[in-house]
């Protein structure tokens, strides 16, 4: 840290101390270090300062102080992210929203909830259930992840096959811009004229500011839900059944797949009692009007049987359904039971490429000797391969990284994407050029500079090369093509 950095941090710390109680301005090393990583623990940076504001005004004032002194800041909610999006900056401030956790309004009349960013995803559903509503996006970490983090990462979840991602459920947000201004994006009207700035902010991974209040769309609880656990001998069969279901015009709320290794881990962790000896299971959930669900269920059952299902178990009560989902939702963390270390990968492929890509992953695994467990949202082709290794073994970490990277290449080759829902963060910024051209990235950089001209909002994330906005983006000589055409200027 240079002396200028140190002076900047000290100034922000002084400002924070005026605004917050002592306990919420963290400066000593032992405490700071507990914030040095999020859910992706192999990247660690001790922040220079951690602040835990309770109000939007406090948060805005702290960001304004950062802007005034050129101090970088990073937002963090529950710290469960899997791409290092909330990895702190060594010379910066970590702004933690976990104490901003009021659910301000839950309105039945217009199906809205207004919540602070630190509110836990599942708590929104808990608050809305008595009114007959719920919050649809359900990441596997929904019992702990925060709405602010969901907005930053545009989080999905098992049910986004039918209900879409966070972006489909956020109607408005109050945002503290990187200059420290508190602005409102979106609003009560279903569609605001002009640019969809809210759309730009959702999924921007904390690079365009920090949300301090989020208006969410609530979804009516379905009349009927049927959850069925289906055992197959192979992932091929399960994949084919998935494609057949969608092709038949049935849109389940969720179709989730787990392979044998993932099943083993989940069993070890939560004794979810999945079919013994299955090479793959599908968790299929149908919801909606009772008649419709009954009809769809018959169709699904037949299609699964036709594609080799050897066991189909319909959840008979809510406890039964919860246990089926528990196996699936605990799978990532449960892998800790069968392997000392692992990488959770996140990639997307077109659903039709599923069998082919799974074979390629299996080949990668056998040729490298690195075990890979597969858990994924089969319905929308969002893969979550879990690459297992033991860091105590020399070179095992590197080998796992290599397999993990090769899986992303497979996704890109098959016309998919390097992340379905975990975000790019720090973990995948290096892969962005494999997916996007220089021009694509430069264009994104121009958007970022419009919000954050000084590059202090979560710098070093998403984009492969950190840049200041004054710099000419890209490595090519001469002006940007858009500049040349007179369509854009450098900020």
């Amino acid at each position, binding site marked *: 840290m240079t002396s200028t950095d140190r002076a900047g941090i000290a100034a922000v710390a002084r400002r924070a101390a005026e605004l917050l109680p002592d306990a919420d301005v963290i400066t000593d*090393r032992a405490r700071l270090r507990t914030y040095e990583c999020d859910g992706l*623990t*192999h990247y660690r940076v001790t922040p220079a300062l951690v602040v835990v504001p309770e109000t939007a005004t406090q948060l805005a004032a702290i960001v304004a102080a950062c802007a005034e002194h050129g101090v970088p800041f990073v937002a963090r909610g529950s710290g469960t992210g899997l791409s290092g999006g909330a*990895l702190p900056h060594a010379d910066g401030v970590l702004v933690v929203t976990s104490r901003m956790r009021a659910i301000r309004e839950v309105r039945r009349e217009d199906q809205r909830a207004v919540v602070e960013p630190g509110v836990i995803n599942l708590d929104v559903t808990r608050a809305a259930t008595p009114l007959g509503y719920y919050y649809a996006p359900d990441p596997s*970490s929904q019992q702990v992840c925060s709405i602010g983090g969901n907005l930053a990462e545009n989080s999905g979840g098992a049910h986004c096959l039918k209900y879409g991602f966070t972006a489909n459920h956020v109607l408005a947000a109050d945002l503290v811009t990187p200059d420290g201004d508190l602005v409102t994006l979106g609003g009560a009207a279903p569609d605001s004229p002009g640019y969809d700035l809210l759309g730009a902010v959702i999924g921007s991974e904390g690079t365009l500011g920090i949300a301090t209040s989020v208006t969410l769309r609530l979804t009516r609880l379905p009349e009927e839900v049927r959850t069925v656990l289906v055992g197959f001998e192979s992932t091929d069969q399960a994949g084919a059944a998935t494609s057949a279901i969608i092709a038949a015009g049935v849109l389940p709320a969720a179709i989730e797949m787990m392979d044998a290794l993932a099943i083993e881990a989940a069993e070890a962790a939560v004794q979810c009692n999945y079919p013994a000896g299955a090479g793959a299971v599908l968790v299929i959930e149908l919801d909606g009007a009772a008649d419709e669900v009954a009809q769809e269920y018959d169709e699904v059952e037949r299609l699964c049987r036709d594609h080799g299902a050897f066991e189909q178990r319909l959840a008979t009560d809510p406890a039964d359904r919860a246990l089926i989902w528990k196996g699936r939702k605990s799978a990532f963390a449960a892998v*800790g039971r069968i392997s000392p270390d692992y990488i959770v990968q996140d990639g997307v492929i077109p659903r039709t490429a599923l069998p082919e890509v799974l074979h390629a992953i299996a080949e990668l695994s056998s040729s490298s000797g690195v075990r890979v467990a597969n858990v994924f949202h089969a319905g929308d082709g969002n893969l979550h391969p879990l690459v297992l290794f033991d*860091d105590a073994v020399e070179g095992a970490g590197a080998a796992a990284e290599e397999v993990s990277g090769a899986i992303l290449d497979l996704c890109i080759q098959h016309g998919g994407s390097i992340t379905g829902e975990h975000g790019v963060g720090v973990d995948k910024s290096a892969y962005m050029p494999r997916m996007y051209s220089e021009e694509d990235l430069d264009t994104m950089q121009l958007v970022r500079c419009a919000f954050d001209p000084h590059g202090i909002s979560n710098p070093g994330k998403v984009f492969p090369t950190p840049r200041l906005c004054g710099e000419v983006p890209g490595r090519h000589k001469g002006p940007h093509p858009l500049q040349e055409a007179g369509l854009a200027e450098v900020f």
Partner: protein
Amino acid sequence: MDGHTDTPAYDGHLGETGSIVDLGLPAPGGAFDEHHPPDAALIGDCVHCGFCLPTCPTYVLWGEEMDSPRGRIYLMKEGLEGEPLSDAMVSHWDACLGCMSCVTACPSGVQYDTLIEQTRAQVERRHHRSAADRALRGLIFSIFPHPRRLRLLRGPLRGLQRTGLDRALRRTGLLERLSPQLAAMESLAPRLGRPMPLPEHIRASGERRAVVGMLTGCVQGAFFPGVNAATARVLQAEGCDVFVPPGQGCCGALSVHNGREAEAQRYARRIVDTFEAAGVERLVVNAAGCGSTMKDYARLLADDPAYADRARTLAEKVRDVAEVLDELGPVAVRHPLEVSVAYHDACHLAHAQGVRAQPRRLLAGIPGLELREIAEPELCCGSAGIYNILNPEPARELGDRKAANIVATGAELLVTANPGCLMQVASAIARSGRPMGMAHTVEVLDASIRGVPADSLREGTRPSA
């Protein structure tokens, strides 16, 4: 080791990479010495997923990483890596209630219970506490684990309660000003009934189905003698020969939970000696905190060659009274009890011992009894052994939150299986101004078996204010 101790964390923009733990022995100069430091392999089980956060009472209260299980484990890791033992570090471990809710929530099977015990023993040996803190802890541990001294306290306490001086004292706020911790201790004292000494051997009614020993405990025996009497009667009625050996003393739970390892081991050895001699098939415990500690005796006495095996054998016989009764199945006739009951899971029963279904089954088996669930069941009531005396503020907040959830059930009777919870919840319910009856699970069973009317329970374990 990925060089965490050698390389400053500020090095490089994106920080270091590598596994979260890959630790050997404690680094010199760090928080821990080599006598049972928090186990590096167990710390390594934590994948930092954060599923423990929303179930941790202190995270729920304060929302800060250091006051979550994940953060506390991280502090242990820092300590092993060479970060020195500081007041700050210790304050976050001290703030842990030890409720083990995180153990239930953890999908990776992290043994936080073992880790925090190991850490606390190190803290007690190596950390210098303030004179006032030392004095308070000294006072607590010179009274609580000693059934006889606790019984001596009963006289003056009953006198205070009978004359109403306890309430007068509370109104002055004098104790609160002198020491909030002492005030907390006073406010928790339950309304005391008559002492009920148990005979050493109670014969089974009807056919003998099991031979069991019974722990009488410290607080249970002195403050809730009715619970012990009910336990003995119910066991007897269900066909158990019950042995209540004298001089069994304290089980060591409070000492274990507060890092007083040597003291805990002394108590544990005495329990092993006493109940070995009694020759019982099962050792029945009606206080959740005691039961969970006794089930873990094998680890507590692992280093003692004269006791290690014997401790393991005894620990395998330990059962909560609800487990034993559920295992045996009912033979005694249950008379109807027309009462609505809110059942509160004691942390050391539900989280530490995994006993949730059995007490509910036993209660639901009573005709006429209606069982209600309490919202936020996994959240600790704030009792946590002596936590509510050492940390009155968070304990009070948690107590009030629990009381509100209990009152919201609209039940007539609160039932739980731990003396600490009974005292804590009783004083919180009293503050809420919505008094209700309170009882231990076995007291309800006892009333049903004996055909005593439900009203006797509503009168039961009343708060003292």
